[in-house]
């Protein structure tokens, strides 16, 4: 399947081959292949410790893989950095840091600003536009410790938006956010897709996978399956990924939502 896709569309947004990562001899990711066509919303799902975050981090060069090849639009990541934006888990920083919302969002421009240059009017403008897109305009001057979890998440999304990238990697953006933020993120994801961007999202809520995403990667150290949601997000694959511990239903639709066990 992946070969076929590659032939059809040589311009896969993300291509990962044979990616293997180990922390002190314990494999975290094992021989993972991933081909993401341009313009899809891709969920990365799997149980805790499946290597979802590690996958993103090693694509971004934050974790050094033991083996593997990573291409963004056909070129090595180092050469395509401008095309990529990263939204880390919001719990990964100290929100008591002395800075404002606008300042954090402008950090998205630091890479393209170059050495010694301070953010100026243009960066200011871009940051305000990004905040507008996530519905956080009126918070621009707020100290970041005064934000709710959902607002923190939207600030991180806005920061990535200022990078004006082609491929977005988001690590659990839906984790512990309120309904307003969830809606805002969904709208944002759809806007990004409409603009031809590719988005990879580490996701936890199995109930919403088929509603929010069109592609899905099931991961548990190894790649269980990857492809369009209808084909891949099956009871059998879920069992393979999560083990026999949970009973899933084959059709994850709204009508049967009550019966679905959420992990």
């Amino acid at each position, binding site marked *: 399947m992946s070969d076929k896709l590659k032939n059809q569309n040589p311009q896969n947004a993300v291509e990962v081959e044979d990616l293997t990562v180990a922390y002190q001899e314990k494999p975290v990711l094992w021989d993972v292949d991933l081909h993401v066509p341009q313009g899809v919303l891709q969920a990365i799902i799997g149980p805790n410790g499946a290597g979802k975050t590690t996958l993103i*981090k090693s694509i*971004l*060069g*934050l974790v050094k893989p033991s083996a593997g090849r990573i291409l963004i639009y056909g070129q090595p990541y180092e050469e395509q*950095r401008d095309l*990529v*934006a*990263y939204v*880390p888990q919001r719990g*990964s*920083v*100290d929100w008591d*840091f*002395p*800075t*404002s919302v606008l300042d*954090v969002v402008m*950090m*998205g421009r*630091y*890479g393209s*600003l170059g*050495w*010694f*240059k*301070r*953010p100026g009017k243009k960066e200011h403008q871009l940051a305000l536009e990004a905040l507008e897109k996530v519905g956080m305009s009126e918070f621009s001057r707020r*100290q970041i*410790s005064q934000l709710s979890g959902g607002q923190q998440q939207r600030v991180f999304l806005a*920061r990535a938006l200022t*990078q004006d990238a082609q491929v977005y990697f988001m690590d659990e953006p839906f984790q512990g956010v309120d309904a307003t933020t969830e809606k805002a993120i969904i709208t944002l994801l759809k806007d990004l897709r409409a603009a031809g961007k590719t988005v990879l999202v580490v996701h936890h809520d199995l109930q919403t996978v088929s509603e929010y995403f069109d592609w899905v990667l099931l991961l548990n150290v190894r790649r269980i399956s990857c492809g369009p949601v209808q084909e891949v997000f099956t009871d059998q694959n879920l069992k393979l990924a999560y083990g026999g511990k949970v009973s899933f239903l084959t059709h994850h639709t709204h009508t049967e939502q009550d019966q679905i066990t959420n992990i």
Partner: protein
Amino acid sequence: MPDLFSQLWSDYTVRTVALGSGILGIVSGALGGFAMLRKQSLLGDAISHAALPGIAIAFLLTLSKSPLVLVLGAALSGWLGTLLIISVTRTTRIKEDSALGLVLSVFFGFGLVLLTFIQRQPYASKAGLDKFLFGQAAALLQSDIWIMSILGIIILLIVALFWKEFKLLSFNPEYAASLGLPVRFLDILLTSLLVIAIVIGLQTVGVVLMSAMVVAPAAAARQWTDRLGKMILLSSLFGAIAGISGAFLSSTLERLPTGPTIVICMSLLVLISLLFATNRGLIWRWLKERKNRQKLQVDAVLSDLYILAQQHENIEHSHPIEVLRTMSIGHGGVDRTLKELQKERMVDQKEDGTWRLTRQGFEKAKNMSEKGENL
């Protein structure tokens, strides 16, 4: 007082000491701010202790007490200690706090052994090395001040140049790396600046207490502001104030050691900041909480009276205070709250001691409850 000041200032030694302490306060304050935000406050302690064997070895190798030589030795040894901490944390299962403790005590112990050894040797110039333990600002010379100023200016310049990179490194290093910033290089650069900042203060404050000059100004400054730029400026300012006032104090009062005096001045600034800072200060927060509580109590009593009034045909119907006490959470402070509401003409008390809402109070309570329902 101004007389005393100008008298002190005209004194060569005092002026030199004050200048030196001020510079060290500015530099360690600025770098300490970053160290605190990167959760590396304790690293400063390890670096300053780890510098001691470097001072001793530099002396043994050159038999010179030239500050440049000793500072160089201190810097190398402090740097080595830092590298050790980083590599131990990275390659073994030992956590950072244990690595810090290990390096600190091993280096410091080794330094003490070397110092004792030097004291037993017949070197003519050996005297004064032990002053590095608690610092002796009186020994500062004009030439030391020059070295400190030049190093200080270089450090501050680099911080200003790499300002946005250091900010992002401190806030979110992984994101910085994803943007392509050379995080490893920036990390080493910022840590090296911290090492130099600490080393130039060693002669004045001493290895044992130098870490206070890294941690304390930053902690005090953080209390007053929510912006990084202001915080670093304030941190430097606090460091300078503590350095200069400590230096003056110790030269006015005889036999008062400079280092500890500076640190005590700094601690006073921290104490004041912890208590009185706006927003974050303990007293400020206590006052704010009290105000909130009072407001909540007023609202609660108002709405209790409103509920009672709704239960009767006649709004004018009054109720004894016991009813309100039973309704209120915690059953306290109803008396005081009613008196307050009475002052605002929201409630009045009938001759038999029972309470009721006034027209004004009724409207306000009604308004409140409708708003509450809409939320």
